[in-house]
């Protein structure tokens, strides 16, 4: 007997008898002999729960998996999440349920997705949000495909060089196979070159433009006038935003974007080596029927109660098959629940306060690093939020290795001499001083 299999010998005997076969293996008599697997898998022997725990404890001892004080960002951030988030996530009614097809016994999931959609729409300044996507990169790729399918006569989708290269690479991969060209808009001093963008737009044939805010280098770009220029060419504007900064920053909606996308990990989700996170996508009402993914809507039940249900499913693969807006069927529901609880408990003030602290911490660290005389800003004069780039003339690899030895993840190397550092509200003044000290101690 094994703890996950309840079948006793007696059960087996009775069930086999009902079916009319002698052994469970006879149930595979229709499998051709050449395809039968007749040996044991080359896998380790079963572990008891005690041994399993021990196994993972050994893998997480400080030699195998070192816990570093995190000043790295580049799309994944070490933000604070109140304890209740992780606690409620573990409720099995949420954790062990499927996509809410049966609305009558899934109002819990449908309610929180509706709340999630409302919160994302509000944060991004857009009309509507879907029920979530895999991650920020695939959400951006889906937005590129939306732009392409929305365009009547287009030759390409433009992506700014200041968009995270990892995101760009996913967009390029999707576009390559889906069958449309991506053209890069070059950057100038760390921001999207307006001259280059205007030139591309004036040539016509642009299905959409994809920008990032704050951009990959942490810089807050001024997008004034871009939406009008894109719309004049019948294209759509897609802004990939970091939602935790939207407590403060001008929203994609205010910039005139048609689609807002991004990674929601910064809203209460642990880093967990980069996944699972959650992609979000919000858009204008006009584009609702072009949007991929699940959408939850409000309706009434047979008893006249307000109820929620998956809606507008005529866009989706299980109805439309190859004509669907996307192949996506799942969402990242549980990760959307992290975001929803996080935003509910942090609320209006908490999200703003965390953003303020992150901003203040990053600027404090920046001042201190520049003050040592060993670093200089890579993009001087550009406003940044909680992430920034500095140049270091010495051996950057050696410097980072030294910081690691001291227990710090000092940032992400983004160029031969360029280090990108991120600060969240989790980083204490002592840690900021500690990092400054370490980065200047090395000769």
């Amino acid at each position, binding site marked *: 007997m*094994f703890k*996950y299999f309840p079948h006793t010998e007696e059960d087996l005997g009775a069930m086999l008898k009902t*079916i009319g076969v002698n052994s*469970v*293996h006879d*149930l*595979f008599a229709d499998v*051709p002999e*050449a*395809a*039968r*697997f007749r040996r044991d898998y080359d*896998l380790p022997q*079963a572990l008891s729960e005690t041994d*399993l725990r021990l196994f*993972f404890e050994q893998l997480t001892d400080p030699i195998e*998996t*070192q816990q*570093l004080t*995190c000043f790295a960002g580049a799309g994944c951030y070490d933000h604070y999440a109140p304890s*209740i988030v992780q606690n*409620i996530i573990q409720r099995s*009614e*949420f954790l062990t*349920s*499927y996509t809410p097809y049966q609305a009558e*016994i899934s*109002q819990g999931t449908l309610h929180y997705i509706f709340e999630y959609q*409302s919160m994302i729409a*509000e944060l991004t300044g857009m*009309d*509507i949000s879907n029920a979530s996507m895999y991650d920020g*990169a*695939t959400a951006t790729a889906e937005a590129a495909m939306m732009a392409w399918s929305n365009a009547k006569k287009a030759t390409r989708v433009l992506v700014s060089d200041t968009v995270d290269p990892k995101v760009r690479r996913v967009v*390029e*991969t999707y576009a390559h*196979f889906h069958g449309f060209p991506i053209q890069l808009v070059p950057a100038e001093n760390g921001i999207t070159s307006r001259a280059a963008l205007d030139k591309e737009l004036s040539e016509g044939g642009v299905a959409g433009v994809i920008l990032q805010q704050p951009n990959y280098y942490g810089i807050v770009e*001024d997008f004034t006038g871009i939406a009008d220029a894109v719309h004049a060419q019948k294209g759509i504007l897609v802004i990939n935003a970091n939602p935790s900064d939207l407590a*403060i920053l*001008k929203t994609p909606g205010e910039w005139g974007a048609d689609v807002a996308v991004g990674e929601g990990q910064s809203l209460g989700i642990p*880093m*967990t080596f*980069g996944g*699972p996170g*959650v992609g979000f996508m919000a858009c204008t009402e006009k584009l609702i029927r072009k949007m991929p993914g699940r959408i939850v*809507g409000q309706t009434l039940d047979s008893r006249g109660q*307000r109820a929620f249900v998956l809606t507008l499913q005529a866009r989706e693969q299980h109805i439309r098959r190859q004509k*669907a807006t996307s*192949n996506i069927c*799942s*969402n990242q529901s*549980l990760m959307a629940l992290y975001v929803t609880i996080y935003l509910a*408990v942090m*609320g209006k003030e908490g999200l703003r306060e965390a*953003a303020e602290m992150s901003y*203040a911490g990053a600027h404090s660290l920046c001042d201190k690093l520049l003050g040592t005389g060993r670093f200089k800003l890579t993009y001087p004069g550009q*406003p940044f939020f909680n992430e920034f780039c500095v140049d270091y003339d010495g051996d950057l690899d050696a410097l980072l290795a030294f910081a690691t030895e001291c227990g710090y993840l000092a940032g*992400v190397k983004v160029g031969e001499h360029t280090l990108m550092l991120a600060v969240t509200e989790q980083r*204490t*003044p002592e840690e900021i001083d500690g990092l400054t000290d370490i980065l200047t101690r090395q000769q």
Partner: protein
Amino acid sequence: MNRTLYGNLIFELSKKGRKGYSLPQNYDRTHSTSELPEALRRGEAARLPECDELTVVRHYTNLSHNNFGVNDGFYPLGSCTMKYNPVINEEIAAMKAFAGLHPLQPAETCQGALEVYYNLQQSLAELAGLSEFTLNPCAGAHGELTGLMVIRAYHESRSDESRTKVLIPDSAHGTNPASAAICGLEVVEVKSLPDGTVDVEHLSQLLDEAGSQVAAMMMTNPNTLGIFEPRVLEITEMVHKAGGLMYYDGANLNALLGECRPGDMGFDVMHINLHKTFATPHGGGGPGSGPVGVRKGLEPFLPTPRVVFNEKDKLFCVNTAATPLATTAHDDSADASALGSVGSFLGNFGVMLKAYAYILTLGRENVKNVGPLATLNANYIKERLRDDYLLPIEGLCKHEVVFDGLADKSTDVTTMDVAKRLLDYGYHAPTIYFPLLFHESLMIEPTENESKETIDAFIDVMHTIANEAKSDPELVKTAPHNTPIGRVDDVLAAKHPVTTYWKSLEG
């Protein structure tokens, strides 16, 4: 599950000035966001809720009471493999050393995490009978898309550009044709025979007509009717002969654990749904994980980043190999074999931890019983329900069984009604109206975790409902009666979409 509707939205519990959080106050306030030019700042604060902590805790706890999960009761949702999600796996995935790990941390400081990642790749390859796996894709459909990209990259590398068609049985999951279309491929349907299996003669005809244009054939085996495709070896051989590759949709892999491997059936590329076969929770629709495996020779076409073991240094490392993607198929300046990336980082690592813990818990001695026991449960249900429910196809099924509604067609009680009545009795409904081959499809997948008692009780209720359909059809047609809400108005929801709280206030 609570039988009355809780019904509130968090916004309705909000009161100006309340707080549910606390943050440290001792930080350097030299700078603040007021330094940012006004043009870069939002006009008005986001209308997020203002609630104290207990209000938030109660709200989501109450919402959970209006939800039904595997831990609440039997969840025979066909094609979804609603297994028990072991609790210990949650504990492991939440370990601080994993949860706090930044994805760009140097490889030498996270060997433990990379070892799990690498070992899971290897374990899946052994279970699938394939050479190598990528764990990057985040879900089954994402895996399908990635697998098709691998296939296209392979054909591109051989300058075989005319292969733009994908053969897909008409019984396939909707994601198959949708993934093919997103990947820029043209879908060609292969007919099914009356017994639900692939019409090999039709396939042969399609290959004769356009074999040189076939990039791949996608198949689920057992198919969506829960039936093992008896001529699978012939099919894979025919497609290979025409120069196409075979794609295995791993949605129904659970049935085969212990008995049969996709690689041994001749499949070249496949995905596995870790959230089905490897017991990670579905989480109300995600996160999943959809690893993609390939046979020997196709490894270079897998997406990056990859986790590899460096024999020389005895270290696990992350190979990002950010080779620019070839914008044209034969751009010699770029590495045409590089597929690109399908996600920012390594995939859903938190899900992988749970899947690997599950594999280690089962071990070689128990993994092999998964398919046989799941198949035993399904066949038992098939035999015991065939008197009251119409069994359209005779013979053995695998991990799931499909009925075509009630056997007695004299009542106008539909599959939808039966499904809704099941909710009254404390069961999740089976998958309904899929596969599309029958009008009243009712697809039941019990999984290996369910006991004979649980299944017998379910069977009794199914018989009760069949009797009710004759004695009191109205009772069934107006079901459910004991759930927090009754049937919903889908038309209203779609006709006047209200998808945010703000829109609902407009009235």
